[in-house]
């Protein structure tokens, strides 16, 4: 069906309205981070900076231990995602093939339970074990997020893979592990990509584990940015620059891998 020019115009306007809340917000965020303080405190607000001011970024990068917090985030998220894939992908395969729906239900419940309800005992446990100065408490608690995501996405992915090929190689004498490694795993690569991206984003964005479990030197980026908001009372420019730096990896990933993200966020929901 082709559209009349009027219909095209209406569609264009409607699309514009739908994308503008997201688009304008991030545009304003970028604008805040690039303006000198004098523009940020001006009224009426200034959208286009009078001069592009990158000093907000350099201030954040140089003076606020940004490198350390970035490394912390990278270690916590990297480890939690790697561990989750390592145990979650085989588990999802097992659940899908053994049709262990009760186990899938446990994963579902874990996804629904409020994070704070795990945190009180884990906090006391880590304190008791004397781990609070290391990144281990955060790596371990981030598994609460990453393992269910990986199992959830991979289970529905493995269920879509045809079983015939696997059965044929079983008859040829391959054991279960070989079937998994040599046949199912290579086919599951697209699914693993989706699981990896979403587990990475959820772990990277996580805030609540950090504010409870992180000390001054073990903060991840979201916690560090939150603390600079409350305790140091710095001005809007550097703060917006920090906000952008924290979320930039995720936003880039969202744009580059939007197909996988859409697929992952709706897996299990639309299926």
């Amino acid at each position, binding site marked *: 069906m082709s559209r009349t020019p009027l219909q095209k115009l209406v569609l264009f306007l409607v699309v514009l309205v*739908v994308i503008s809340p997201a688009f304008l917000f991030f545009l304003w965020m970028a604008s805040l981070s690039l303006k000198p303080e004098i523009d940020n405190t001006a*009224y009426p607000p200034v959208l286009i900076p009078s001069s592009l001011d990158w000093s907000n970024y350099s201030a954040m990068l140089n003076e606020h231990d940004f490198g350390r917090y970035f490394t912390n985030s990278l270690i916590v998220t990297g480890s939690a995602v790697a561990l989750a894939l390592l145990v979650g992908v085989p588990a999802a395969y097992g659940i899908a093939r053994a049709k262990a729906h009760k186990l899938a239900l446990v994963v579902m419940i874990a996804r629904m339970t409020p994070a*704070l*309800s795990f945190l*009180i005992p884990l906090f006391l446990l880590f304190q008791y074990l004397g781990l609070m100065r290391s990144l281990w408490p955060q790596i371990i608690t981030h598994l609460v997020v990453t393992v269910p995501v990986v199992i959830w996405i991979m289970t529905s992915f493995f269920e879509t893979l045809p079983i015939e090929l696997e*059965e044929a190689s079983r008859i040829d004498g391959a054991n279960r592990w070989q079937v998994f490694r040599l046949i199912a795993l290579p086919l599951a690569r697209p699914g693993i990509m989706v699981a990896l991206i979403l587990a990475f984003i959820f772990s990277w964005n996580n805030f609540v584990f950090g504010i409870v479990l992180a000390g001054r030197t073990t903060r991840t980026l979201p916690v560090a*940015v939150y603390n600079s908001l409350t305790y140091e009372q710095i001005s809007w420019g550097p703060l917006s620059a920090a906000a952008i730096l924290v979320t930039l990896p995720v936003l880039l990933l969202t744009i580059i891998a939007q197909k996988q993200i859409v697929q992952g966020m709706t897996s299990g929901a639309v299926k």
Partner: protein
Amino acid sequence: MVGRPAGGSRRRRLNWHSGGYMPFIWPALLITLAVIVFPWVFTGWMSLQNWQVGAERSFIGLANYARLFSDERFFEATGRTLLYTFLSVLLPLIFGTIAALVFHEEFPLRGFLRGIVVMPMMATPVAIALVWTMMFHPQLGILNYLLSLLGIPPQLWVFDPGTVIPSLVLVETWQWTPLVMLVVLGGLASLPSEPYESALIDGATWFQRLRFITLPMIVPFLVVAAFLRGVDALKSFDIIFAITQGGPGTASETINIYLYLQAFSFNDMGYGSAIAVIFMVLVVALTLILLWLRGCTGWREAQG
């Protein structure tokens, strides 16, 4: 079940389909037991103790729960949580459905633009909360400026007890409308084309097709979206905590925030655990209700 191994004995067939997969599952199961199931059980046990950090702990039975039922602040937090959840399900559901109907049309750059629309729900919540806090600023914030263009007097947004919940719901709606959109889009993509063809032959208008074909057929997907949204809104923490910490006063204190304050600010681990247990019961109960609703709307037939 198709494609059983040819000539396999009964025992072997059973083995293929059920047992033999536990070695794949064990590592994940152990981790789940350690970081999820153990804390649940331990929280339950802690809720029966008088457990203040730095003090002797003692078994006090159900006293924490008794205290909970006479704690007005807890009941206010519960009411607030339910209101917040209700609004944070309803509004994204409405806007998300509209956005999905738009993105179901074909137009240039659709994939890229969908990526932009999805950004709010993927972006780091704390980073977003920071920018919203600046936008809510009563004197310098962009929102009051935009209102002034429309001739509306400035608001106090999150700085006034009367408007803090609607303001936070605004952020939550902005953030999570894309999720509803994605779920409904998936639904729209799965609809059969025959009803539309016959409706066109019968001369149905665009609005009639929407009202009598599309909407009834995507109801199961709306229920799924409401379910996902409800579970997340109920335990919403990052946005509320980063913007208001439950304030001004206790005006935006939800159960989750109150639980955090009791356990980690007032260091009352026993009472915090009791709140956690009740909160979990609430989440699970709401989940079951929504699952039951899903059963009623014939979601299973709809997935085809």
